[in-house]
């Protein structure tokens, strides 16, 4: 197949069957590092991640290995790293690193790609050389900050300048990062266990001894391997990384600030607007996730007896409160009950029912965080009000021996289903028993 044909397929590659997809990835890899190939790979990367396709080892991939966890993520399920490195920056940086090292020396590092006794040493030497080169590039670029860099073909924004510095720093501690990745595997880690904490502590101590300034980025790398990065904060306070108490407090404050900023960003991500109809389930998922992050951060702050983030924590809690109130609770009953009216089998019915189910589930999901948000009363009131209306609808449709399978009965049973999604199976079963059997079973 011609390269142009492959590239023309674009996002169609996301839907072809798995064996063919694997074959195409293999073909793309053989075609080398070309901008068109990179664009195609960028399109299909989410599926490659999903299928965990084992990529051919290359020196470029080895270069990225220590900082790959900081690359931007795809989809809603993966959390964004606390400090992001753009793939585009890495793609612009690598050719410069490659040219500076030179073909001959690069060839001598090839052994780092294959199993054998030479692998470890060669990889470490390669990372050390790359670190020095990236640091040089970053230093030279510092004078052009804000302008477009000709060699890299990128505008050197403050974020990219910071990311370049981060890459250089991470490459200097690449061996410790390798151990960290081994300790925190497989990614994402949902709960920190003792062996995880010991792994982080051991590699962290080595970093603190050899390059204390790299400790923050090292911890951010550790956080990026977690399902919820804020979960690391609690463990971190108890960890002995061999730092002086003052340094430890500074590092902790620094990291707490980064975690807090990310939580604040997330809390702004689903702001209601007149143009946007809220996806109530997405809002509920976000609210539950944010409250878990807030809890973890608050616990860590309490352990460290630090009150400096109290105000920001309170503000985020306030914005989650508002988000749940205005986008999940408000008018939830109208949408849910209205769906029962249009059960005529059309395409609209499907969409309306799916939306109503999503609203009911969102309400129920939010009940797990309603107490913390001070919304318990409002949520209970909304749930009771909706349940009462749905019960009346069900009674009207199914009462008096109408419990067959007709149009009317269908809306009655759908009302009971909505009660189940909203208030649980026990409540729905009780309502159904009352209507169909007069409460006997």
């Amino acid at each position, binding site marked *: 197949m011609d390269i142009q044909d492959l590239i023309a397929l674009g996002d169609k590659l996301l839907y072809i069957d798995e064996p063919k997809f694997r074959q195409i990835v293999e073909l793309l890899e053989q075609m080398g590092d070309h901008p068109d190939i990179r664009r195609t790979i960028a399109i299909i990367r989410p599926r490659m991640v999903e299928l965990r396709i084992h990529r051919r080892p290359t020196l470029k991939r080895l270069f990225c290995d220590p900082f790959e966890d900081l690359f931007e993520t795809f989809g809603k399920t993966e959390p964004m790293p606390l400090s992001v490195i753009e793939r585009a920056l890495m793609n612009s940086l690598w050719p410069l690193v490659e040219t500076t090292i030179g073909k001959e020396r690069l060839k001598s590092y090839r052994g780092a790609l294959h199993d054998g006794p030479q692998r470890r040493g060669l990889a470490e030497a390669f990372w050390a050389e790359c670190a020095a080169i990236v640091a040089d590039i970053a230093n030279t670029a510092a004078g052009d900050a804000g302008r477009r860099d000709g060699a890299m073909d990128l505008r050197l924004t403050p974020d990219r300048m910071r990311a370049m510095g981060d890459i250089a720093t991470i490459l200097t501690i690449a061996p410790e990062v390798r151990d960290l990745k081994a300790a925190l595997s497989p990614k994402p880690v949902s709960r920190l266990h003792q062996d995880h904490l010991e792994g982080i502590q051991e590699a962290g101590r080595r970093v603190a001894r050899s390059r204390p300034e790299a400790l923050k980025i090292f911890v951010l790398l550790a956080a990026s391997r977690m399902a919820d990065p804020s979960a690391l904060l609690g463990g971190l306070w108890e960890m002995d990384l061999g730092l002086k108490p003052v340094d430890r407090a500074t590092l902790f404050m620094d990291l707490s600030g980064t975690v807090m900023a990310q939580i604040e960003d997330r809390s702004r991500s689903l702001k209601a607007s007149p143009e946007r109809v809220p996806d109530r389930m997405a809002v509920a998922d976000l609210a539950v996730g944010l409250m878990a992050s807030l809890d973890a951060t608050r616990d860590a702050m309490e352990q460290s007896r630090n009150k400096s983030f109290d105000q920001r924590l309170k503000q985020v809690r306030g914005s989650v409160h508002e988000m749940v109130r205005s986008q999940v609770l408000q008018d939830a009953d109208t949408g849910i009950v209205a769906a029962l009216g249009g059960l005529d089998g059309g395409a609209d019915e499907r969409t309306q029912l799916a939306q109503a189910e999503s609203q009911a589930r969102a309400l129920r999901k939010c009940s797990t965080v309603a107490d913390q948000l001070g919304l318990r009363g409002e949520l209970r009131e909304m749930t009771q009000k909706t349940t009462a209306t749905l019960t009346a609808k069900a009674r009207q449709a199914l009462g008096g021996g109408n419990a067959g399978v007709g149009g009317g009965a269908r809306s009655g*049973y759908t009302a009971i*289903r909505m009660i189940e999604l909203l208030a649980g*199976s026990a409540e729905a079963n009780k309502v159904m028993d009352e209507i169909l059997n007069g409460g006997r079973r």
Partner: protein
Amino acid sequence: MRSLTNFAPSTFEDRGAAVAFTTPVLAQTRVRKDSREQLEVLVPNLSEGRGVYVVPWKALPLAFPMTVHDRMLHDLIAKADGCSPDDIRKAVLQSARCGLAGNHAVEAAEAALRDDDEQRLLINYQLIVEALKAVGLESTEILRAGLASVEGQRLTRDLMSKAAHSLALEPTELYSRIAELAVYVESIGVLTSPKPARLRRLMRDLQGFRESMTDWATDNVSEAAPIGGFCAEVAEHTINHARTVMKQLDQSVASFETLIRQWDTKRLLVRKAATRLSWLLDGWEYLIALWADSVTKSRHEQDLAVHDIFRVIPLLPKDETRLDQAMAAEKLLQANRRSVRAYVDWRSGQLDVDLVMRIETLKGKAA
């Protein structure tokens, strides 16, 4: 509680028929009759432990928190005459049509019932054609006149009277035998049918499942790979048995004249084969849909799906095969322990709604 090996059923009736519950812990559990003809349900691997719990049918809602759909299905099965796969399917479609398992399940159940009606019409016509063919009569004129037209029906009656005469039967007797045969083979259809019936389609899908699972388990280093391999083997044995039964049935229908002439003995064989086929393939629709849904997902989700399939895989009863599949499954369980996977929210004891909805979607695909 009995262990999986101690439990190993001897017959299909002992194994029970799979029930498409949407409550995760009860999904695809089996119902059967006890020695006093009372219904009981077999719940395997509760909390991922070993063995099978036998719970009286009436006590099921007290023992497990159930979805409202399952409560209705529970009632319908309790009120039904029997608990064969066909009886259970009827109850499952009836409860799904109500809307308690969501809109998708309603649409799927209605499509399945429409398909049943079409197949019923088709098989009746095909058996009439077979009857005419058996005595050397042509059926093309009926088709030309139109099956539902007055002319078409008159032609059918005339030709069938001639056929009955050739077979030395009363026309009503021939009609009644054909009608009875149609009921037996309704879900299987005839070999030459342009539109394969439900169990033929299911066999084809099971073949696809076996191939896909074998491919997945080969060269796979995951802990679930040997379990996937076992599931593929069970599917293969089931296909082989089902193929033999299907062949017998097809041969019986192909020798239509003998079938009708020796009706008293042959009808028993046909009925037995048709019943056996529905038992053999019982419970596979859901597992095939579960696997088809998982193949596009992550490795971890595929591993979990394989464990879920293994939990309720329809092992062949002892009387059906020389292989002791229950023993093989027990050995596999011992070799592959796994952490507990809860089906309820551990904080509240509430059902995992996301899991319930996933089962509802799969149920829709499997209907």
